[in-house]
């Protein structure tokens, strides 16, 4: 025991030394690039340097941490100290959506976007209180392992494998999409090549060293992503609040944003633009109500205008314009209807800006109450989903002890908190900057960042002078959520090297999450399906080799699915959380806290939770085209609100109706409840 104490302590100390050096080295690298930029290095080269240096670094860590040991490959040898496991979990957890999308969601949604912030942090309370210490004491390799051991039999394990793979796969596609997006934007490489470069880096890493390599890479990635997120926010915050920790001071900026919102709502020029949109939307609705008549009249009108122009002998450019509108007139009824439908959509832009700090905005009390219910629904599903996502729970198998697992959840949430309490601050700062510097500027001299982004990507920033007064009104600006994080360095007036740093941070966030997810899927297939169900006598070398091969296969399939660019990625991510909450949370927690929960309870409970969840999504989400009326107005993303309670009740009722679990299973439950039990005969952990 004493030698073990010694080795854990020295290990922890040398880790701290290595990562301090590493952090210093990374900052030096950024500074060198900053100097290089000043003496004329091109933007593309700064992008390449960040891309290849960081990916090379991750691959390098993979080579140094290569292993063929089972326990090292699956759970990093169970010797990751709480502090570092916390950082690794932070990187594992924070995805491209958190890093790039979160601040944008808050910018566009105001208070209502905070549901994601609360849901994605508060879930760790459930991990800490209900799962992490007990899973660590159980000490196997995967989450289906626990379900199979606790409830017995391959049916439970199979449902576990299917659920783990479904939610992880849906999630990994979103990450790989993020990888392709970032690399293509910042280096000019093609989307497909960007995906290939990014994936090859993480594959070298996770293939050679499994969980061990992924852990140490994720720590490195956390350090990059948090530096990248904080730098521009601190800069912008100091500019607007006067102190370098804007997170505590942006309350006053928020008040100013509120004042500017009132000003924009009352401004006559803004009202003029909003009226243009309202009129166009009304015209679209009217045309849709009488399509045949409107189509014929509209056509006659443009043709008459052309004929008039020709006879009236007006300048040539006016005739050309009239000819153009005849040519552009919809060829058939379907095209015309699509056009009118687009016009009715402009009604959304006819509304004044949404008050940023006001919760649950709606036109009447009923709409506001529905908005509140949906806020609660998202918080609920994201929290319980967090506490049931296999790639996160797996990380708590890697600490040296139960107590370290508990402390490790604390560090995990602490490191996640740093980013999540910054995102709402960034949203407010960016909004203040735009309300005060972009609104009211003239189209001839837009702020430099706005001119650049509007030219590069109209999907992220579109500014059109609808009322032709030459001045920017807020109603004339359309912003894509991702713009906020990507453009902040330029809004804050920082050199391009910081934009490169932000891209490297976004890439680190996407890659680290993809790493953990791919490993979860490959392990579910190699360990749970192959080793536990098909060939229990497989040698350790064979198991690890199969796992490595599967990792590559899964990565290729995921990259292929990503290249098809499947629809609404945010919905898919939300759906993964609801599914995990419905399928995993009830059997995992009841398995520890209620000895009487048995096999049939778990099987029917998991099936019932999953079934209601999938049913609600399929029949309500517009993509599937069924569109049945919503229950209580709850959106299909929050289907876990029905799945989880149904799962709990079903496990409870069915368990009581069937015979109690065997004595051995009850002893297993006692075994996981105590960090150390004298006289306990159970083998403590898999090696």
């Amino acid at each position, binding site marked *: *025991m004493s030698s*073990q*104490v010694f080795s*854990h*302590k020295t290990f*922890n100390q040398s880790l701290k030394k290595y990562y301090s050096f590493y952090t210093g080295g990374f900052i030096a690298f950024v500074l060198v690039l900053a100097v290089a930029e000043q003496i004329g290095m091109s933007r593309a080269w700064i992008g390449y340097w960040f891309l290849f240096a960081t990916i090379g670094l991750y691959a390098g860590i993979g080579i140094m941490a290569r292993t063929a040991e089972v326990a090292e490959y699956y759970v990093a040898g169970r010797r990751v100290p709480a502090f570092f496991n916390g950082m690794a979990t932070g990187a594992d957890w924070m995805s491209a959506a958190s890093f790039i999308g979160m601040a944008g969601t808050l910018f566009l949604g105001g*208070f209502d976007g*905070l*549901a994601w*912030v*609360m849901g994605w*942090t*508060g879930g*760790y*309370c*459930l991990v*800490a*209180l*209900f799962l992490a*210490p007990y899973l660590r004491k159980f000490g196997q390799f995967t989450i289906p392992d626990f379900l199979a051991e606790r409830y017995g039999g391959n049916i439970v394990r199979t449902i576990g494998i299917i659920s783990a793979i479904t939610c992880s796969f849906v999630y990994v596609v979103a990450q790989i999409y993020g990888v392709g997006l970032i690399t293509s934007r910042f280096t000019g490489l093609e989307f497909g090549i960007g995906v290939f470069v990014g994936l090859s880096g993480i594959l070298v890493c996770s293939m050679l060293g499994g969980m061990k390599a992924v852990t140490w890479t994720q720590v490195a990635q956390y350090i990059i992503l948090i530096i990248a997120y904080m730098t521009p926010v601190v800069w912008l915050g100091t500019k607007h609040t006067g102190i370098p920790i804007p*997170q505590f*001071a942006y*309350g*006053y900026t*928020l*008040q100013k944003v509120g004042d500017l919102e009132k000003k924009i709502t009352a401004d006559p020029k803004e009202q003029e633009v909003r009226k243009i949109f309202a009129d166009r939307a009304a015209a679209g609705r009217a045309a849709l109500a009488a399509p045949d008549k409107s189509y014929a009249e509209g056509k006659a009108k443009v043709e008459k205008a052309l004929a008039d122009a020709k006879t009236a002998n007006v300048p040539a450019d006016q005739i050309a314009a009239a000819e153009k509108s005849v040519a552009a007139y919809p060829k058939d009824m379907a095209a015309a209807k699509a056009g009118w439908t687009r016009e009715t959509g402009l009604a959304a832009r006819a509304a004044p800006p949404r008050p940023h*700090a*006001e*919760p*649950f905005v709606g036109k009447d009390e009923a709409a506001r109450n529905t908005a*509140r219910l949906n*806020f*609660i629904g998202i*918080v*609920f599903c994201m*929290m319980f989903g967090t506490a049931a996502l296999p790639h996160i729970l797996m990380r708590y198998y890697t600490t*040296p*002890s*139960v*107590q*370290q697992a*508990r*402390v490790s*959840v*604390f560090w995990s*949430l*602490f490191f996640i*908190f740093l980013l*999540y*309490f910054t995102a*709402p601050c960034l949203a407010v700062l960016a909004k203040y900057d735009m309300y005060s510097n972009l609104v009211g500027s003239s189209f001839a001299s837009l702020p430099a960042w706005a001119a650049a982004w509007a030219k590069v990507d109209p999907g992220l920033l579109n500014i059109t002078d609808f009322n032709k007064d030459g001045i920017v009104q807020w109603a004339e600006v359309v912003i894509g959520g991702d713009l906020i994080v990507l453009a902040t360095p330029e809004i804050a007036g920082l050199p391009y090297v910081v934009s490169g740093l932000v891209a490297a941070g976004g890439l680190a966030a996407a890659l680290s999450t993809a790493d953990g997810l791919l490993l979860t899927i490959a392990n579910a297939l190699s360990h749970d399906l192959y080793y536990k169900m098909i060939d229990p006598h497989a040698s350790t070398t064979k198991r690890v080799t199969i796992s490595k091969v599967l990792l590559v296969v899964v990565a290729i399939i995921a990259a292929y699915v990503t290249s098809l660019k499947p629809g609404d990625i945010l919905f898919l991510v939300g759906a993964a959380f609801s599914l995990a909450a419905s399928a995993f949370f009830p059997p995992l927690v009841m398995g520890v806290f209620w000895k009487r929960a048995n096999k049939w309870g778990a099987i029917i409970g998991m099936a019932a939770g999953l079934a209601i969840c999938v049913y609600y999504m399929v029949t309500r989400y517009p993509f599937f085209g069924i569109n049945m009326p919503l229950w209580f107005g709850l959106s299909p993303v929050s289907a876990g609100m029905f799945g989880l309670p149904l799962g709990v009740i079903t496990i409870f009722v069915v368990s009581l109706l069937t015979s109690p679990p065997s004595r051995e299973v009850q002893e297993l439950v006692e075994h996981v*409840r*105590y*960090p*150390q*039990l*004298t*006289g*306990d*005969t159970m083998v403590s952990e898999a090696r």
Partner: protein
Amino acid sequence: MQLTAKHEEYWRKNLVYTAILLFIWFVVTFVEAWYARELNAFTFLGFPFGFYMSAQGSLAIYVVIIGVYAMLMRRLDLEYNVDEGDLE
């Protein structure tokens, strides 16, 4: 193996800690969100209070809840002699 009365007591205390911390979690999450509009009437550090809690306050309390749980359980492990020895 048969659990002793002390073991049963350890588990009961664990459940009490868990329940209390979970109650705090519930209040700062769901009760707070439900009454966010009413809480916004107050101001804190320049923020409307409901906004502050959802953006920062509740998050910080989550971190504290987990820290307190780890500390209490460490103490309980030692008191009931079910700790794993010093592995740090």
